[in-house]
């Protein structure tokens, strides 16, 4: 019925759904040999109830609940998406100066027959070993250097760039600072504004601050329905402005981090719908939606000249701001 029924990770607001699922399961098992029409009807009724309830819950989520979905451990990451987005995926490695960051992966993908794109995105990893290798999706400076190297590769060969962003933020560590975390992010942001091939950025999970923006300076910035994009984590913001991390739900509200809020503020270009019950319930359907959206935007961007692509992007970011004069 859905991946959810055998999922090990349940969010608070999903609990009524799980209860209902268990009821359906029980009924189905106990009546597997029961051919009576009324039993089947009641199972179908419960299933209908389940879908309705899920729809209702997922369309009325508070910002901090969306944050939980964005951080769901079963949420698809870049290496999951590329399997569904196209064919001939070849991952490329390394920053060419001593490191291969696991938190940013990239490579070549044939999106449609004859249409190669460079995909660069965050990877959080599955299982503790992989998660450690990917540093839970928090890049070191070398990750941003690797991304930049791949962007330049794309530009050199005239290939569009797709970035898939899902990071808590750039890694706050000793080595990261020693190796110039600030500078690495700054250079990526600046170099992305200069790229002369189409760039589409999609926030797929957590768009964590500067670490996310370093991959998000694009001609089109899209967000998955339950993704979040924020200047600071609500926990960090609450700790500073409310002086307690316990107010993070208030901070999540105040910061306007959801896709709907950001579309209303005209800070993103489009919301890509997820599979019902969140992307973790159905990877391939979510990927199909992403692909549809990428293709519709590429249709427009591929008609623009390299100079136009750069100018458009430059002007787009030049004009963000809310002030009075």
């Amino acid at each position, binding site marked *: 019925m859905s991946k959810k029924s055998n999922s090990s990770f349940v969010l608070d607001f999903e609990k009524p759904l799980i209860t209902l699922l268990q009821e359906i399961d029980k009924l189905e098992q106990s009546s597997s040999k029961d051919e009576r029409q009324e039993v089947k009807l009641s199972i179908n009724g419960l299933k209908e109830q389940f879908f309705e309830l899920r729809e209702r819950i997922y369309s009325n989520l508070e910002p901090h609940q969306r944050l939980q979905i964005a951080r769901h451990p079963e949420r698809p990451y870049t290496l999951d998406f590329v399997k569904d987005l196209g064919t001939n995926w070849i991952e490329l490695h390394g920053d060419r100066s001593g490191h291969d960051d696991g938190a940013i992966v990239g490579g070549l993908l044939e999106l449609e027959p004859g249409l190669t794109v460079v995909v660069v995105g965050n990877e959080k990893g599955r299982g503790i070993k992989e998660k450690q290798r990917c540093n839970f999706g928090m890049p070191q400076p070398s990750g941003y250097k690797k991304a930049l190297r791949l962007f330049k590769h794309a530009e050199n060969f005239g290939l569009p760039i797709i970035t898939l962003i899902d990071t808590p933020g*750039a*890694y*706050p*560590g*000793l080595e*990261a*600072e*020693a*190796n*110039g*975390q*600030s*500078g690495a*992010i*700054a*250079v990526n*942001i*600046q170099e992305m*504004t*200069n790229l002369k091939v189409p760039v589409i950025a999609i926030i797929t999970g957590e768009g964590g*601050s*500067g670490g996310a*923006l*370093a991959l998000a*300076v694009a001609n089109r910035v899209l967000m998955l329905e339950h993704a979040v*994009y*924020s*200047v*600071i984590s609500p926990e*960090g*913001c609450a700790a*500073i*402005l*409310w*002086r307690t991390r316990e107010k993070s739900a*208030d*901070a999540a509200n*105040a*910061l*306007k*981090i959801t896709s709907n809020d*950001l579309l209303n*503020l005209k*800070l993103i270009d489009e919301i890509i719908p997820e599979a019902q019950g969140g992307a973790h319930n159905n990877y391939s359907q979510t990927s199909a939606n992403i692909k549809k959206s990428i293709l519709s935007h590429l249709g427009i961007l591929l008609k623009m000249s390299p100079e136009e692509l750069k100018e458009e992007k*430059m002007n787009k*970011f*030049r*004009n*963000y*701001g*809310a*002030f*009075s*004069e």
Partner: protein
Amino acid sequence: MRLKDLFNFKRKTRPIKPSQEMISEQELSELWTQCPSCKTTIYTAELKNNLMICSKCEHHFRLSAYDRIEHLVDADTWEEINCSIKPSNPLKFVDLKKYEDSIEAAKKRSGSNEAIVTGVGKIDGFETAFGIMEFPFLGGSMGSVVGERIARLCELAIERKLPVIIISSSGGARMHEGLFSLLQMAKTSAILSKLRENKLLFLSVLADPTYGGVSASFAMLGDIIIAEPKAKIGFAGPRVIEETIRQKLPKDFQTSEYLLEHGQIDLVISRKKLKETVTQLIKLHSKTLYGNPTNELNGFADIISQPLVSSSV
């Protein structure tokens, strides 16, 4: 007089009480400043005369934007721009107080109307575009106004072909404007690309402290990056890092000197030498192959291409 009379001495006048003309305790404490680094008590007036540098240990106190302008810019050449660009509250942000109230308090505290002061003035005769951040204004945080003022400053510099100096002092992006603030990182970086395309020099000066969204955008994009001694500079704050890696950080971590050692900045310069150094750098870049209207180095070509005096061998 007998000896015991000496001990019978009584004051004929009343004891002196602190009169109203005398300095209050608060004024007294303002008169003297303790250096947080070497703990020496310094006469505040003397400290101010010394560009807020401790005369004993060279500790650089934070300096307000207008004090910096007075120090750096030639007298009577300063012309402030962008004053009318003011913050709004796009998210209707409220934490423990309204964003509008936080702004009003910041104005009073800092004496500036935003976290950056921008303008044009001369430095040793060279006309230059200046952006100077004001830390006491909400921690020098970058919101839409800081981004817009920097963008307009650079656009003016492009129009008038001026070098740009920005002195940063900031905790990072301003939370109260949410994603608008984050996007100012891209806006300022984009405009600096245009400055570069126009072959104009950008000198980034980092003062204590420079962190987060400011260090991870325009501040680290200087053609040449200068820092004041012992300024704290980094991406993430030390507390966040300690909480993440669960170990104590080295003492000089994230200081100017640490960054210099790790190849991230060009120079660490005392505030007293800043004007001199900046002027020298501008001068050294003033005549180049891309100069206006023609190659300004053309004249040198003739001199350089003269055959060397032939040797007697």
